[in-house]
């Protein structure tokens, strides 16, 4: 990385040592293809300490909550063997509590990685970096798509890896209470994949919000509003409309997608998948459209 030997101190002369071009026409040489822009965005992503802090925090929170949840679930199931009320509650939840333990920190992972999505674009505008970015890629959309790929893939991988890590930590704790967690079971795999896709989707929504709002605090608060405030507010407002509308909030799509069987008064899995997809596609397309049109 560091320059090893001092090269014969270049002077301004080096600026144009290669060619002498005059007149019109565009110059030869590689331009910004999607893969190059993706590489550039990945360099930008990994050279910020804040990115690494957010990714690290996600892992810590996921693993920490997995361990706590394993302990709490164990305590609860022990109580259930003695307390008929607790047993009834346990039965009402479909029996297998252990399978949800590795993803119990997901609400926080989505907030952290969703914020990462916001920051990835809003910081471009708050720092002025956007002028450099879009001067190098004046078509703009490749840079947006590259950021989308970077944040979606990273969020998926980090969520999946930390879910696995949480699972490995939770398995022996649950075992102490006689509960079995099989990480290779189809339901465990489904939980891992659906939740990782979900968090990746939240990160994509975050990126879209950051692009639309161009302000870090505003973008993160919109995200919090959509994922934390709206579900509660919809529950408090009386009326059938809000009961119905609540089902279509992005945060309420995970339960139907991971349910063993369809639970009455919730969306079917395929409906939930479409709703979550729409929550990603609409803001992302709107953000892309406006990014292309607006002044930087």
């Amino acid at each position, binding site marked *: 990385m*560091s*320059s090893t030997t001092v*090269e014969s*101190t*270049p*002077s*301004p*002369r*080096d*600026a*144009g040592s*290669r*060619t*002498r*071009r*005059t*007149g*019109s*026409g*565009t*110059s*030869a*040489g*590689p*331009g*910004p293809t999607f893969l*190059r*822009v993706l*590489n*550039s*965005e990945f*360099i*930008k992503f990994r*050279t*910020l*300490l*804040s990115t690494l802090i957010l990714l690290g925090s996600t892992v810590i929170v996921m693993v920490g909550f997995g361990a706590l949840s394993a302990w709490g679930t164990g305590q609860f199931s022990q109580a259930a063997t003695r307390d008929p009320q607790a047993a009834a509650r346990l039965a009402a939840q479909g029996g297998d509590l252990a399978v949800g333990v590795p993803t119990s920190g997901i609400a926080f992972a989505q907030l952290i990685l969703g914020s990462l999505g916001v920051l990835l674009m809003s*910081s*471009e505008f708050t*720092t*002025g*970096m*956007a*002028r*450099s970015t*879009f*001067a*190098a*890629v*004046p*078509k703009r959309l490749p840079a947006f798509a590259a950021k989308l790929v970077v944040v979606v893939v990273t969020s998926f991988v980090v969520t999946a890896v930390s879910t696995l890590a949480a699972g490995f930590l939770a398995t022996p704790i649950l075992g102490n209470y006689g509960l079995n967690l099989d990480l290779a079971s189809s339901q465990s795999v489904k939980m891992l994949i659906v939740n990782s896709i979900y968090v990746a989707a939240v990160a994509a929504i975050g990126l879209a919000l950051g692009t639309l709002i161009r302000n870090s605090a505003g973008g993160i608060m919109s995200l919090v509003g959509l994922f934390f405030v709206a579900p509660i507010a919809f529950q408090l407002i009386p009326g059938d409309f809000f009961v119905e509308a609540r089902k279509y909030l992005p945060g309420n799509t995970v339960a139907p997608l991971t349910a063993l069987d369809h639970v009455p008064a919730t969306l079917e899995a395929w409906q939930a998948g479409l709703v979550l997809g729409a929550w990603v596609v609409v803001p992302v397309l709107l953000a892309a459209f406006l990014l292309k*049109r607006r*002044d*930087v």
Partner: protein
Amino acid sequence: MIEARGLTKVYGEKTAVDGVNFTVEAGRVTGFLGPNGAGKSTTMRMIMGLDRPTSGSVTVNGSPLTRHTAPLRDVGALLDAKAVHTSRSAYNHLLAMAATHSIPKKRVRDVIEMTGLAEVAKKKVGGFSLGMGQRLGIAAALLGDPQTVILDEPVNGLDPEGVVWVRNLVKYLASEGRTVFLSSHLMSEMAVTADHLIVIGRGRIIADAPIQEIITGKGQRSTRVRTDQPDRLMQLLAGTGVSVEVQERELLEVKGLDPRQIAAAALENHVMIYELTPLQASLEEAYMELTKDEVEYHSLITTGAVPVEAGGK
């Protein structure tokens, strides 16, 4: 070559750039001079495809930057020393920029050396002084070895050594046949750097000419005259297009007549003149003259005759 045709930018009620036409030719340093708020930066952002013109167009080498296949290799720009993420190091900033065009790491190290940033390249840009920020911006502009170089107020915040360095750099780049477009609100800097000058005021082009022509032509020449009969001489010289200003009791400044005409009038009417000095307007005066009606933010003028520098960051 940069060509603007009917280029206009309107922000809400305010017209920042008002239908300007100009051509920036290759092989010379073209200065873009105007008071703050005149529309220089807006014009440059439109060249870079960052701001969309309300109407009209601006092209680089014949096409808008958004249609270029390798923009960084065609046009390098320093638009704002702060167009960098403050938490990233200078090296990583340039590395990420370079990656978009597969520009090798060697070139990144070269522009770092060239701009004198080697010692601070691994430090976060947030801690940079304005001068170092300018150097980083220039490094980024040169990264793609571009045919066209656009620098918005590049000497802002530079130390004297840096100012001379930028001056030599832009002259060298132009001598290689590149198009160099340089903005400033400092006429003194333009006088020693630019070959050609485009003067803008309130979004309109006021002058577009070789620098020598602007100094000698546009700035109205005047003549200093000392006489013991100033009132009589003023009567004699009065006419259309002639203005006479009384500077001291026996000292007049005459515009609109050359020294020979003044001397002839005086001789004919037996008025003694004991000084007759042709005055050449400095670029500064020419600039003030050109922009006096176009300054967006007038400073409060305290003494009538002293020109106040228009703006200044």
